[in-house]
C-alpha cells in the first residue's frame, strides 16, 4: 500500500540558520518557479531527490534569474548584475555543488560564472540521474512504459553547447521502453527554436516556426512520448504537438517525469 507523505522542500536560509549545510543546491530556475507546466518537472525531480534521500536545498525567494537570456539577448549589463548577485548569495551559503534541470542555467553557471570568480561543480539533472543509476542507487523495474516508444530531443545547451549527449540517453536506457532517435539527433539535432531570447519574442518573419519543423521530426519517428531535458524545449514541443493536433496521441515529458512515473512517486 502506498502512503502519501508531504515533502517540505528544504530552503537554504533555514538550514543555514540551523548550522546545516546540504550537499547540493538545487537551482530551480525561473521556469521551474513560474511556468505551470514546468513546475511539474521540478516537483517530479524533488520527489526523486527525496526518494533517494539526497541532501539538498533550494534558495527559494532568494533565487533570481541566472541572467542567461539577458546575456544572449545582448544585455551584458543586466547579465553581470544577475551574475554577481547570484554568486554572492551562493558564496554566502558556501555552495559547492549545484544541480539544475535547465541546460541554459547549467551552461552559464558551468562555463561563464567562473569568469566572475563563481566556481561551482555544476550538474545537470540528467547527469545526476545517470550517476545515481550507475551507482545502483536508482533502479527502475516498472513495466509502465514497456510498450511505449520514446524519442529524445537534445537541448542545444546540453548537447552542442556542452557535449552532453550520453547522460540523458543512458537514463532513458534504464527505463524499460523502446528508444527511437529522430533523423536529426545528437550534434545534428535541430533546435526547438527558443534559445537566444527567442522564447520571449515573436519569431522573425519566415515561412514556419522552428518548433513545427522539430515536431515533424518527432512525428516521423512514430513515438508516443517525446522526452526533453530543458524548460524551453518543453514549452516549444508542447506547442508543436498542440498545433499538429497530436497532444492526445503523443505526450511530452521531461526525463525526470518519466523516472517519477516509473518509480510511481
Amino acid at each position: 500500500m502506498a502512503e502519501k507523505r508531504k515533502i517540505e522542500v528544504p530552503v537554504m536560509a533555514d538550514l543555514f540558520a540551523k548550522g546545516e549545510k546540504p550537499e547540493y543546491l538545487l537551482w530551480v530556475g525561473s521556469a521551474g518557479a513560474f511556468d505551470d507546466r514546468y513546475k511539474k518537472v521540478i516537483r517530479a525531480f524533488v520527489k526523486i531527490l527525496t526518494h533517494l534521500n539526497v541532501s539538498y536545498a533550494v534558495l527559494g525567494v532568494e533565487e533570481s534569474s541566472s541572467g542567461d537570456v539577458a546575456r544572449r539577448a545582448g544585455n551584458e549589463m543586466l547579465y553581470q548584475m544577475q551574475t554577481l548577485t547570484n554568486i554572492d548569495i551562493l558564496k554566502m551559503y558556501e555552495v559547492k555543488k549545484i544541480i539544475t534541470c535547465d541546460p541554459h542555467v547549467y551552461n552559464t553557471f558551468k562555463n561563464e560564472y567562473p569568469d566572475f570568480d563563481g566556481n561551482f561543480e555544476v550538474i545537470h539533472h540528467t547527469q545526476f540521474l545517470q550517476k545515481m543509476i550507475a551507482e545502483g542507487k536508482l533502479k527502475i523495474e516498472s513495466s509502465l512504459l514497456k510498450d511505449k516508444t520514446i524519442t529524445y530531443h537534445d537541448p542545444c545547451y546540453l548537447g552542442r553547447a556542452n557535449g552532453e549527449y550520453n547522460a540523458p540517453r543512458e537514463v532513458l536506457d534504464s527505463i524499460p521502453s523502446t528508444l527511437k532517435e529522430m533523423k536529426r539527433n545528437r550534434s545534428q539535432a535541430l533546435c526547438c527554436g527558443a534559445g537566444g531570447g527567442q522564447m520571449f519574442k515573436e519569431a522573425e518573419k519566415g515561412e514556419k516556426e522552428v518548433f513545427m519543423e522539430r515536431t515533424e521530426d518527432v512525428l516521423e519517428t512514430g513515438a508516443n512520448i517525446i522526452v526533453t531535458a530543458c524548460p524551453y524545449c518543453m514549452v516549444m514541443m508542447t506547442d508543436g504537438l498542440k498545433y499538429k493536433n497530436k497532444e492526445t496521441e503523443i505526450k511530452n515529458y521531461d526525463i525526470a517525469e518519466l523516472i517519477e512515473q516509473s518509480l510511481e512517486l
Partner: protein
Amino acid sequence: MISTIVFILMLAVAIAFFTRNVRKISRNIKLGKDINRKDNPVKRWWLVFKVAIFQSKMMGLPIAGILHVFVYAGFILVNIEMLEVMVDGITGSHRAFSFLGKFYPVIISATEFFALLVIIGCVVFLFRRNVIRLPRFWKPEMTSWPRLDANIILLTEVVLMTSVFFLNASDYILQTREFGHYEQVGSFFLSSFFVPLIQNLPSETLVLIDRSCWWLHIAGIMLFLNYIPYSKHFHVFVSFPNVYFSKLEPAGKIANMPSITREIKSMLGKPVDPEENVDMAAMSFGAQDIKDLTWKNLMDAYSCTECGRCTRVCPANITGKKLSPRKLMMDARDRLELTGKNIDKKGVDYKDDKSLFDFISAEELWACTTCNACTNECPVNIDQVSLVIEMRRYLVMEKAAAPGELNAIFSNIENNGAPWQFSQQDRLLWANELYINEKA
C-alpha cells in the same frame, strides 16, 4: 635563355603581387581587437591535424567531403611536379628530376593520378553547383559574383590539371621519336591514354603543344595564386591558422566583457580596485564596425569559403527566416575589404559613413537562437554566433534597440528576477502541497 629570364620575371612578379595582397589581408585582420588564442598549443595543433589537415568535419556530408579530399590532396600532391616545373623554368633544364631513373615515371604517373582526382572532384562540383543546383549554393546571398567565383576556381583547376596530361603525352611521343632534347625518361601511366589523340601530329606541333601546356600550366598557377586573395578561395591558406586559433571553450560559452564588471560592481556597492579608472562614457559596447570585432572574427570572415554548411543546418534559415550564418561571414568580409580599401586610399584614420549594420540587418541578428548548429558544422571552425552576440550587444547597450518583448523581459529580470512578471516572493509556491508516495 630568354625563356629562363621570362620565367624568373613572371615568378618574381607573381610572388611580389601575392605577398602584397596577403600583407593587406593580414593588416586588415589586425584591425580587430585582441583576443588570447595562444593558450594550449598542444590542443591547438591537434585540432589543426584533425580538423584542417585531415578535414574531420568535412565528412559530415560524405560525398562533398570525399570529393573535397580529392581536390585538396590532389592539388597539394600535383605540386611535386610543380617543383620540377620551377627548377626547369629557373635553370632552363628539361625534366630536371629525371635523374631519379626508374622512379621518375612512377612519380610522374602518381602526380597524373592526383591531377585526375582533382579533375573528377572539380567536374562533379561544377555539376552539383550548376546542374543539380544544390539549394545551399543558390541561397539569396549567393548572388552572381559568389557563384561565378566558385565556377572560376573549379574551371581553372580543371584547365590546369588537363594541361598536365597533354604536356606529358606530347613529351612522351617526342621521347619515342628521340626528338631534340626530349630524352628517354619513360612513359607515364595516365597521359598515355592521351597519346593516341596527338600521335599523328608532326614533331614541331608536338613541341608547340608541350611548350604551350608547360607555359599555360605555370602561368595559370601564378595567375591562380594571385586570384585567390580576391576570392573565397583564400580559405586554402587561412583555414589552417583559423583552425589553430579556434575557440577551445565549450561552444555554449559567450565571451565575457570584463570592461564593464568594475562598473557593475560599484553599482552594486561592491569593493572595486581604485587604481583601475575606467571612463564609462568613452567605452563602447558590442560591435558596430570592424574595429569592435576581434581579429579572430575577421580571420573567420577570410576563412569562409561560402560552402553554406552552416546555413544548411541553421534552424532560422531552414524555416525561411532571413538569417544565414554564411551571409554574416560574407558581409563581414565585404565590410572589412571596404575598410581596407579606404585605408589604402585615404589613410588609417579615414572613416566612411558605413558600418557592419549597412551589411547585416537587425532582423537577421534577432532570428538567431544561439543553438550553435552553425559553429558545430563549420569545417574550418568559424564562430558565427560570437558575431551575432557582439552585434546584439551593440544594438541593446548602445542603441537601446532590442525588440520590445525583449525589453520587457529585461525590465522583469531587473525588477523581479525573472523574465516573467511574477514576484520574487512567489518563487517557492511551486513547492506547496507536494506529496510523495511511500511504499509500505
